[in-house]
């Protein structure tokens, strides 16, 4: 099982859209996939039209394995399941801090998913907390969407520094440009400058109203509009990510 976290300290950068579309692309009969919605806002759960059962809570997530398995729901797409988010997840950090080994808890709790899934996607909340650190340790790859702006680049380098300072493996981080607008000169320049950065993927995701409309269709773009430019970009991005996982 390979674990891929979609993470950004900033909100509104296309994190959930990437998690939803990439997990949709990852799910095949040979590679059953689970997407874990860790964001209390529950955007990816919303995209898949799934609400958590009343009994689901952050507590269940922290108890791990069996408790988690029971909360998993199938999406409308073959071989793709979802662990929905719950509003109680907003307290995850406090609860994590009360546990003995908060940073390792998540990876331990997810061991039980190993036999069922080949890919595990985390859709993370936008912040840098104990939960994020727990995700960093559990994930094999941390995908970071970046809007091509100077501030984004600054935050991204800060993240890499944070990894170095906290004894985390920074080579797990892979950034990609998201919501790229070719008509904006700053976007063009930044993409050009950073495309060959070792921590950056080549493929960019263009800004697209199709992606925004996922809120209305409530389905992966690659399922509803597979021919759209953004969907094609996700397709290529997934190929690149897959390659990276194989190489790691």
């Amino acid at each position, binding site marked *: 099982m390979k674990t891929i976290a979609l993470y950004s300290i900033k909100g509104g950068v296309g994190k959930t859209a990437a998690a939803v579309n990439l997990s949709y692309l990852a799910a095949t009969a040979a590679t059953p996939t689970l997407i874990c919605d860790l964001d209390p806002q529950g955007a990816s759960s919303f995209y898949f*039209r799934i609400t958590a059962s009343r009994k689901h809570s952050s507590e269940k997530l922290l108890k791990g394995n069996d408790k988690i398995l029971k909360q998993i*729901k*199938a999406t409308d797409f073959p071989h793709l399941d979802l662990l929905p988010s719950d509003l109680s997840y907003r307290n995850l950090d406090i609860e994590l801090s009360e546990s003995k080994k908060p940073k390792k808890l998540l990876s331990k709790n997810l061991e039980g998913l190993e036999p069922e899934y080949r890919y595990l996607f985390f859709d993370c909340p936008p912040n840098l907390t104990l939960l994020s650190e727990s995700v960093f340790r559990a994930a094999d790859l941390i995908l970071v969407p970046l809007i091509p702006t100077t501030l984004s680049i600054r935050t991204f380098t800060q993240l890499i520094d944070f990894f170095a300072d906290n004894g985390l493996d920074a080579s797990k981080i892979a950034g990609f440009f998201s919501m790229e607008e070719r008509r904006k000169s700053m976007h063009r320049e930044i993409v050009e400058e950073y495309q060959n950065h070792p921590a950056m993927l080549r493929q960019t995701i263009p800004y697209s109203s199709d992606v925004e409309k996922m809120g209305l269709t409530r389905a992966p773009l690659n399922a509803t509009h597979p021919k759209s430019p953004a969907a094609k970009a996700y397709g290529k991005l997934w190929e690149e990510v897959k390659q990276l996982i194989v190489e790691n």
Partner: protein
Amino acid sequence: MSDAQETLYLRISTDAPLAQAVGQKLPAGWRVGKSSAHRERLVFYDTFEEEAFRKGLAVMRRKGVLSVIDLDSGLVEAETPLIHTPPHFFASDLPECKARKKLLQCSRLRAFINRCAIDRFVTSWRIVDQEDKTVATLEFESIHKSDKSSEAVFPRYYSITPLKGFHKELSTMLMALPEPVDAYRVTSFRERFAGIMEAAAPTGKGYSSKLHLQLDARAPIHENVRRLLQFTSSIMEANEEGIRKDIDSEFLHDFRVSIRRSRSILRLLSGVFEPEKTAWALTGLRELGKRTNDLRDSDVYLLRRDEYTQLLPPSLRPALDPFFSDLEAEKRLHHRQFNRYLAGKEYPGFMAALKEFIAKEALPDEQTAPLAARPTGEVAVKVIRKALKKLLAHGRRANSETSDAELHELRIDCKKLRYLLEFFASLFPPKATVQAIRQMKSLQDNLGTFVDLSVQMEFLQSRLEALPADRGGIGEAAAIGGLLATLYREREKVREHFHEIFSGFDSSETGELFDELLAGLAEA
């Protein structure tokens, strides 16, 4: 049609509700999606004796995959690719895998036969909740036999499979079924399997070559021997097709056992019919038996291929190849010959005459058939005592050297007693027969192995003598020599044990056991 763990199958017990009404009763906001349809062909396999079914398994081919399914849970226990749909196959033909192992546990000797092929027509709908999220699939299935000329009628089902994590909504999902509500009954995989088998493959149902006759101790023995012969002749007929198609070697084996059993009982109870009738039947059966000998021999030696190969050092193993390819050729020849015999005039004529003879209810004249009218129980006590006495007398007479002939004869005595016990089993207290047969077992095994080894040695010896010296027969001769030496050593070991085993049988315990057995009968 194996079950996903969560699928709920509902058998439609009245007239089929209208599929157009699917989803009409769903609560506000819920609906069913557009329907889609597909068809799949399912082929079910089992041995002639339904050994997989007896072990609680269904063996099914679907979309190029052979699945072994647990009948109680409906879950696939093992699967392996099976590209074609063979009319029959052996478990050992499958590649090394769990499915092969499972089927070998059902039967090593018997072939898995294509029992029936059905086409399953499935119409499916998605059940969608108020969020427009699919929560389950609803399917309607109707089955037709692949053979279009068949008029078999199969039960029909609706099934609901909730998606993972949506089981709580099941009661709402059930509302998707068209009315009337009382048209449905929840059903298990086993029941659905049985429904298909009942409608599609009634042939060979419940076949067993084991004798289970319920006899009345007071009825004339004539009636009961006729019933036995009815059973054995029906077993012979049941196996004809399998022999003709050469599906597996057990068809001929059961056929031969039936002949032997009939002959044995006819001879042991010779006063039951008029002597010339008995003599006629015995001659006919003996001739028939003889005609099967060569074919059975080929079968037996071909089945021993692995065993023989293992007995030899690797350097000699390839030398057995010509031996077995000759056997294969001989088998084809014998099979053709026997098939011709089965299809010719003589065999059907004999069987018809035999059945006519068996069907005659009228008791024969007491002068010529003095036993005929005697009560079954009384006759049973007498013949069993006699057979036991004979066995013991012959065994005691065997001297320290125990010649081949003596052991051969003893084996036949043993078999006779065994056939009598099996024939009359229902007259005795149930446990007593089992115990008596168990008491005989080690003796029977000893004698059986001895004779078996002797016959093999004789066969190998004759083969050795017929080997042409010129065409590279040296290797084969060495291999056969090696086998002979090993079999000889084994046989002599068996011979050495005979006295020990016989004195174990020839004990007061056996005497008491048989006394008890027969006393139980006398009281009845």
